[in-house]
């Protein structure tokens, strides 16, 4: 259905005034959403040692400090390594799961959808605790494998959800045509169905990457004394004091999210997927 202005009343002037009035809360809430993010970005360019507002002079010194620090570089590398290992696996799992939930035709499909989304509904601290207990028994606390598993569990529901929306919009005639032309079910799936679901799969990959790069609630519990990802290191640093280097690292993470949103917005109408 085409979007049309609603609550239209007689008289264009009144309508315009009313529409302008309804924009006020929209702008205010948007400002509330952006405020802390903008402040982080602004304070990362602060030349002074404290968080005085407005910043006293602009400088990139905190970025230089981050890229000169072995600890932050280690964490950046570790975060990227984990994300690179998480994304391909969660994309495969999410594509299969999203297809089953979105386009499948079997009893229990709805229940399966709930099962796939359930890791999202359980508090992170509980997921972390449950995984911690299992990892302790296998001696994997603080290992990259443990963190990898934790990130898979956290990102999986998001991936399933976006692929499922793509899968539900599939035209069933296309795979049927491929089958009637003699393609095997597997070949049909790989050469017809998967390409048709590509927007959802791309969205799932980006969501998986950005969630893995930012994950902290579960990671803190399973990380042990091993290497720390960037968010886990920020988590420890912020509890001690407000270091300007944290602002610089946070701004880098923020840039990754903004780039991801831009990609999601460009490639697909991502609003349909969440």
């Amino acid at each position, binding site marked *: *259905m085409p979007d*049309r*202005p609603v609550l239209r*009343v007689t008289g264009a002037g009144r309508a315009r005034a009313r529409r302008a009035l*309804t*924009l006020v809360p*929209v702008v205010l*809430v948007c400002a*509330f*959403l952006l405020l*802390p993010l903008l*402040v*982080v970005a602004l304070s990362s360019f602060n030349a002074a040692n404290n*968080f*005085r*507002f407005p910043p006293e002079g602009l400088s990139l010194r905190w970025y230089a400090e981050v890229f000169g620090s072995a600890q932050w570089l280690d964490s950046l590398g570790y975060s990227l390594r984990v994300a690179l290992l998480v994304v391909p696996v969660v994309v*495969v*799992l*999410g594509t*299969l799961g999203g*297809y*089953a939930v979105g386009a*499948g035709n079997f009893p229990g499909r709805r229940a*399966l959808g709930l099962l796939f989304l359930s*890791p999202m509904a*359980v*508090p992170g601290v*509980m997921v972390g*605790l*449950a*995984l*911690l*207990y*299992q990892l302790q028994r296998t001696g994997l606390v603080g290992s990259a494998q443990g963190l990898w598993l934790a990130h*898979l569990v956290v990102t*999986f529901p998001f991936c*399933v959800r976006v692929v499922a929306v793509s899968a539900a919009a*599939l035209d069933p005639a296309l*795979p*049927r045509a491929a*089958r009637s032309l003699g393609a095997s*079910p597997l070949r049909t799936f790989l050469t017809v169905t998967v390409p048709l679901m590509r927007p959802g799969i791309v969205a799932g990959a980006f*969501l998986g990457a950005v969630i893995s*790069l*930012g994950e*902290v*609630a579960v990671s*803190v*519990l399973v990380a042990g004394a091993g290497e720390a990802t960037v*968010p886990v290191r920020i*988590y420890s640093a*912020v509890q001690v004091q*407000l270091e300007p280097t944290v602002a610089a690292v*946070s701004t880098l*993470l*923020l840039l990754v999210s903004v780039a991801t*949103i831009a990609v*999601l917005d460009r490639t697909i109408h*991502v*609003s349909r997927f969440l």
Partner: protein
Amino acid sequence: MAATRTRDLRGHVAAIVPTAFVVVAFLLPLVGLLLLSLRPTDEMNNVLPGFTGAQYAEVFGTSYLWGSVVESLWLAVRVSLTCLVLAFPLAWYLARSTSAVGKSLVFVITLSPLLTSEVVRSFGWRVVMSGEGPVNVTLQALGLIDESLPLLRSPWTVFLAVVHVLLPFAVLALSASLGAIDNRLLQASADLGAGALRTFRSVVLPLATPGIVAATVIVFSLSMGVYVTPLLVGGANQSLAGLRIQTEAMVAFDQPRAAALSFVLLAVTLAVCGLVGLLGRLAERGRRA
């Protein structure tokens, strides 16, 4: 609808691997955690074999443990209601605006906190509320206060930061159901002489009930277990269940007790969510009757 779905690789084959993954990586660890919460411990918090309800008895018998669940419940109720109110204008705009640019902009702004790490957002609130941060500086510049206010450790800041973390979920859940409202109904209501408020109360609100229920359930369940944001923004001295679970597990090393507390928290969360769903269904049925 079901009959028109594709029958090629009928989905259940595709479901095998992800199902196995969720069962092994998520459900079994949760079952393990449930068993752990039923184990007895010695004085050193070592886990002993056997079964006992002692951990749960301790959770319900110790005021700072069950009190933390009550505290979380109170926070979650306030956060859910606030998120609903704040989410409505954005969701309405996203679902109804005719401006593609405006929609895209609002959408990106809505998503940006969601895709930004919780630590970054919490850090942002720390800076915003710090002694020389923008809030204090603005208030001082306006001459409203002389000394900077200790905003950082205040429960209000924690509340605001949690609302900020969860607001995008409410917006997305609400906008889905607001977008499904037929424009002709709003038109008809206006044509019949109803004002905007009347239309909102008698047409929009009833039709948005599924979205309101979905938004409430998501925001409520996520805020019940939140711990990173309160810890980073408000410090460790708060009695929220998520924080308490984390402390019991990581500081006191009493995992069985942490496990028991987390299942009490989960049970309360599920009960409230069930209640919200039930109320939503009753409201819809009451209207149809």
